[in-house]
């Protein structure tokens, strides 16, 4: 048995979520190889070779892989896959876009968003927005799967010493081309990688008021998130959204401010270690999942929280 992990990267750095996929791959048993396909991606290959648990790094460097276009990456992975029992990527937009295309060409039914590995062919995955968990067994020869990053620890970024092998690149499929990118400027940690997250809901009233949360976030080294209601109301960009249709997060501390706790939001954050809810409606469903609840007006509570953090700073 051997597992191929598809690295997600931007040709300069390995995306942290890939480290969680390495841990999932190690749980499957057998050797773990990582594919780094990019253009001028030597730094990523270096980083991949140092990841604990990775035995081999396959490097494909070509212009066709400058951007992660599924049309160009798929033929490469399909060519490599028969040497492996499992092909794994993280269930990020990168993995979700790419892996089903790979699975279909291998004539394999992909397993999406794996949360637990029961056996090399048996997996637990969420259905109905995480309101039910299905245990499924695959009868396919090669298992193609995406794994939920928050369900697996990140592999250590040091200690590994993987062998490196260059693999021949496949041609540009000529079907799609990268035009541009508009990434939100994040001065704070990314939501999916943050240790602490503070999120605002519709009760924030407008985008300007999110500055209140940012002030607290800066004191805690936290990321700022939002509920779908706040995103739909246009307060913040949509990549702030925590929930089943946004980002699935599981930080050590999640602070929900003015968020009622719709099922779709809970599905995105209920695996957080400690949850704090601040809401003036004491009947809000968010309190049923919160470890610590404070019934208060957020416009009074958040400045107070900021002051208290400053006052008690150790």
């Amino acid at each position, binding site marked *: 048995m051997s597992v191929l992990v598809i690295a997600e990267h931007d040709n300069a750095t390995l995306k942290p979520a890939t480290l969680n996929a390495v841990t999932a791959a190690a749980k499957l048993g057998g050797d773990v190889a990582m594919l780094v396909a990019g253009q001028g991606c030597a730094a990523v290959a270096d980083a991949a070779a140092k990841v604990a648990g990775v035995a081999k790094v396959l490097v494909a460097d070509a212009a066709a892989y400058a951007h992660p276009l*599924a049309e160009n990456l*798929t033929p490469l992975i399909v060519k490599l896959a028969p040497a492996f029992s499992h092909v794994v990527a993280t269930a*990020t*937009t*990168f993995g*979700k*876009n790419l892996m*089903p*295309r*790979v699975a*279909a*060409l291998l004539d*394999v*039914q*992909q*397993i*999406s*968003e794996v949360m637990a590995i029961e056996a090399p062919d048996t997996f637990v995955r*969420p*259905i*109905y*927005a995480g*309101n*039910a*968990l*299905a*245990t499924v*067994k*695959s*009868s396919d020869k090669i298992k193609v799967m995406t794994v939920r990053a928050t369900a697996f620890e990140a592999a250590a970024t040091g200690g590994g010493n993987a062998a490196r092998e260059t693999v021949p690149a496949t041609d540009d*499929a*000529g*079907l*799609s081309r*990268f*035009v*541009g*990118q508009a*990434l*939100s400027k994040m001065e704070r940690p990314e939501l*999916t990688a943050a240790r602490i997250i503070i999120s605002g809901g519709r009760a924030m009233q407008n985008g300007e008021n999110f500055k209140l949360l940012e002030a607290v976030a800066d004191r805690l080294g936290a990321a700022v998130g939002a509920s779908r209601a706040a995103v739909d109301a246009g307060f913040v*960009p*949509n*990549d702030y959204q925590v929930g*089943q249709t946004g980002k699935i997060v599981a930080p*050590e*501390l999640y602070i929900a401010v003015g968020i009622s706790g719709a099922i779709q939001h809970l599905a995105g954050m*209920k695996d957080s270690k*400690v*949850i704090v809810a601040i809401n003036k409606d004491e009947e809000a469903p968010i*309190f*049923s*999942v*919160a*470890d*610590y609840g*404070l*019934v208060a007006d957020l416009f009074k*509570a958040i400045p107070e929280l900021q002051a208290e953090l400053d006052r*008690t700073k150790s």
Partner: protein
Amino acid sequence: MKVLVAVKRVVDFNVKIRVKADKTGVETANVKMSMNPFDEIAVEEAVRLKEAGKATDIVAVSMGPQQCQETLRTALAMGADRGIHVLSDGELQPLAVAKLLKAVVDKEQPALVILGKQAIDDDSNQTGQMLAALLGWPQATFASKLALGSDEAEVTREIDGGLETIAIKLPAIVTTDLRLNEPRYASLPNIMKAKKKPIDALKPDELGVDVTPRLTTLKVEEPAKRKGGVKVASIAELVDKLRNEAKVI
């Protein structure tokens, strides 16, 4: 230009689902069913393309039991021109659906297929990408903006960390994300008109597709319930608990 849209009949998004006591699945008997919300966005986008003079003919396709015809009627009431129902009472997994859709696409020859990015029941997020693979077509998944040209489409995609724009050659597959559009409600006259629009019925073996599931569901369970904790009286108490009890700040 002909546009094909795929629509799935799922448990309505407002329904709080119940796991069956024997753990074989989720209760769907006597539960309100509706069109998958992402598929409504797909239908809406197709109808807007037609209203803009870019699409000429919209074909809605659904797969599953007889009642899928209701879902197709909804698509027809929103503005699709005709429906195709692939009748199957057994479980259809995404790979099988993609193969069936490929067979329909081979017959219908659309220039564009629009699908929801995922169904809210199995949350697989696979069918569009698989269909693109089987057809050898490009794919633009998680679309929040679609600009359709005559031989190319420029699509803005929602990716982690922001937005990405790609250009794809036609024919192509697009899967919808939430912010692509806001689907309309069908008007009563359009609901009446939809009853007269044609729906063709097909069977998987007529399309030459083996739909045998590859994944066996061993059990379906409810996730562990998170217990509510304590209420604190003040910010000072909250900060104290986070520092000294939970030790997370």
